[in-house]
């Protein structure tokens, strides 16, 4: 009996010893801090990781994930991320680099960009936050084919103090294309950065960085291009976040431009059949003394492009013209027979009567 007790005691001591040893080893082996980075990618990731936060929120529908990534932008605890359904009041939590969990309050989102700021209490943070800020204009330039690193918590693989995933790729190019998320259109209509670094669920809101550590983009969701119907791995240029960040983090007042919406008038009637898919923008009639007549448009001309927007259907032409206001001058490209012609058109207001 005594012998058995001794055995049990020694066994427990032994297992306890092994466990502590293991956890200590675990810390040593997997702690990022104790290893010296050697390559350029390692150095960049090592420098940037403390600025990336994991975000956990309310789970939505089955296909909408309840996790995302954010980037710390101020030492007062501001974190920028994509505006998503998982960000709900009293349910959003932020896990910092060291594994500490913080409740976050929500700040008003920017609808156009689709980004939102969170705020955590900086008093509860161990040590100091390491914020990032969109670099100056010259610093935020990138070239096609440039190597980049994307950081984010893809598929919620990183728990507590585990570090977020780093993926490596190149900048594929800059694009300005109509975007769609699942079935709905995306409001953002500026340039996006295409990359082939993986952009998986959870990586959304993470950052895209050049190898010398410059922050060039905020990862977007896996969007579809309406032009090609293919999925894009894209990032929002970090530079475009500046007005929103300056307003809510630095307290700068943004000039709010209230526009009175006046529809533009070209005097062109398009050839369109009801109940059909919108056909290419063929001109059917041009009114006298209208901008279209001054430009020299004739019947059966096909409008192909307005400024940089390519027009593939009557519907697209209308939606593009809605972006302008009367008085603007646009460059129109049209096709007459086999000739392609261009000219400037000054948009007007619709005459009364």
């Amino acid at each position, binding site marked *: 009996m005594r012998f058995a007790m001794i055995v049990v005691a020694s066994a427990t001591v032994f297992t306890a010893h092994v466990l502590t040893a293991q956890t200590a080893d675990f810390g040593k082996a997997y702690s990022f801090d104790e290893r010296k980075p050697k390559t350029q990618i390692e150095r960049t990731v090592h420098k940037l990781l403390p600025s990336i936060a994991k975000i956990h929120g309310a789970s939505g529908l089955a296909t909408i994930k309840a996790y995302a990534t954010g980037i710390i932008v101020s030492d007062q605890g501001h974190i920028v991320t994509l505006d998503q359904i998982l960000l709900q009041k009293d349910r959003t939590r932020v896990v910092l680099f060291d594994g500490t969990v913080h409740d976050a309050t929500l700040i008003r989102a920017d609808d156009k960009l689709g980004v939102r700021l969170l705020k955590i209490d900086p008093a509860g943070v161990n040590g100091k936050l390491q914020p990032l800020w969109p670099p100056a204009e010259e610093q935020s330039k990138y070239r096609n084919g440039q190597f980049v690193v994307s950081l984010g918590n893809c598929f919620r693989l990183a728990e507590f103090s585990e570090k977020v995933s780093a993926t490596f790729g*190149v900048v594929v190019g800059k694009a300005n294309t109509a975007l769609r998320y699942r*079935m*709905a259109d995306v409001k953002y209509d500026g340039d996006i950065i295409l990359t082939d670094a993986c952009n998986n669920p959870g990586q959304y809101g993470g950052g895209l960085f050049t190898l010398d550590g410059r922050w060039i983009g905020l990862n977007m969701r896996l969007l579809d291009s309406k032009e090609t*119907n*293919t999925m894009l791995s894209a990032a929002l240029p970090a530079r475009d976040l500046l007005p929103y960040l300056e307003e809510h983090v630095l307290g700068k007042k943004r000039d709010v431009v209230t526009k009175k919406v006046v529809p533009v008038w070209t005097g062109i009637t398009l050839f369109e059949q009801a109940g059909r898919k919108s056909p290419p923008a063929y001109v059917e009639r041009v009114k006298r003394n209208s901008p279209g007549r001054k430009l020299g448009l004739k019947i059966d001309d096909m409008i192909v492009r307005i400024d940089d927007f390519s027009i*593939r259907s009557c519907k697209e032409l209308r939606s593009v013209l809605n972006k302008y206001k009367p008085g603007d001058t646009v460059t129109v490209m049209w*096709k007459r027979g086999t000739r*392609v012609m261009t000219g400037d058109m000054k948009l007007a207001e619709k005459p009364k009567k």
Partner: protein
Amino acid sequence: MNLRPAIVLTSLLLPLTAQQGNLDEFLKLEPVLQAALKRAGPFVVTVETFGGTRHSMGKDGPTDGPAPPKPRPKPKKVEPTPVPTPDELPKPLKPGEKPKEKPGEKPSEGKQDPKNDKPEKKDKKKKLGLVATGFQQTQGKTSGIVLTSDGWIMISRFALNLNPTTILINVPGHGTYHAERVGEDTSRGIALVKIDAVGLPVPKFVHPNDVRVGQWAFALGRTFAEAEPTVHLGIVSAKNRLFGRALQIDAYTSPANYGGAVVDIHGRVLGISVPLSPSGRNAGVEWYDSGIGFATTIGDIQGLVKRMKEGQILQRAWLGVQLSTSHLGPGAKITGTPKDGAAKEAGLRKGDIILEVDGVHVLNGPHFQMLVSSRLGGETCTLIVKKKRKDEPIEVGPITLKNAPWSEQRKGKEDLPASFSLPEKEDGR
């Protein structure tokens, strides 16, 4: 001989030198890539298509046309209809009596059982393609490359799938031109268009024999941004794919860069990226972004380009023989010759064994298939055949190969693929 100290020394030194030299080696690739982009950028053009019909490309989505024809049903023996005797003639109905239907006859159109109607509705849904699977092609931009300085542009046949009414080509730094469709090669997935321009930048082409598996291959495209071409990195995965027509690359290819150039580190063109698949009739688009991409080689098809410039539509060859799967060689044994095939017209019959094609010994059935599949319709070939029940092989030919029946241009409205449009909202998510 005491080698031990030397071994210890080298083993100590080797990892040091290897590590210090190679850690950031990959950074050297970036300037090389930039230089290649600079050289290759000018001749990659944007192709814009307008009009046409939108359709989905499912599992059997065609680029070469509709699926191969089904085997013809055997003609049923038509029995002479017996002349009805006066007793069998329908009698005038009494009031309140329903007409009796014969079991074989169809019910009259006006009075259909609602139960019988249901399965027909389902069939209709399938035909309309309301439940679309696979990739949906949209009207939009793709890419292309300049072939000659006097305005010949090579594009991917993918851009012409929707039968566009208008094609415009934007050459960077030169302007936008109206293009006319001239020739196509459906087996390679490429098409030639002509624009009215001169002095265009011309690329250098690499002959596929000079390509090595594992060398860098950058897939360029000019679909999204017209200022600078988009670039995807990859390597050449295999040569002589699809019967010697294409290179396989692992760079991402997608509708966003189909028609664009696949270049090496010197900016020379290895090929033009197109959606293809080995079966020859599937679109291959479903493989986009999968790491399997094809680049049709151009360095070796000068003769075909000449034919395409004349306005020919080149298609895969079809000899018209069915081969035995149990005959392991040498030679390929014929088990049948379909009616319209070139083989039947040349006098080949069931039981004949094909021993040689144009001087190449046929090892077995698949080998023979490979030899014929690499040809195009309209070409000729000479066979050496051992006829059934004869000892001496004889020469048959030259046989003019026909176009594959499934690569013919589709005719009639019923063959048009299923189409449906996605709900498009003006705003809101």
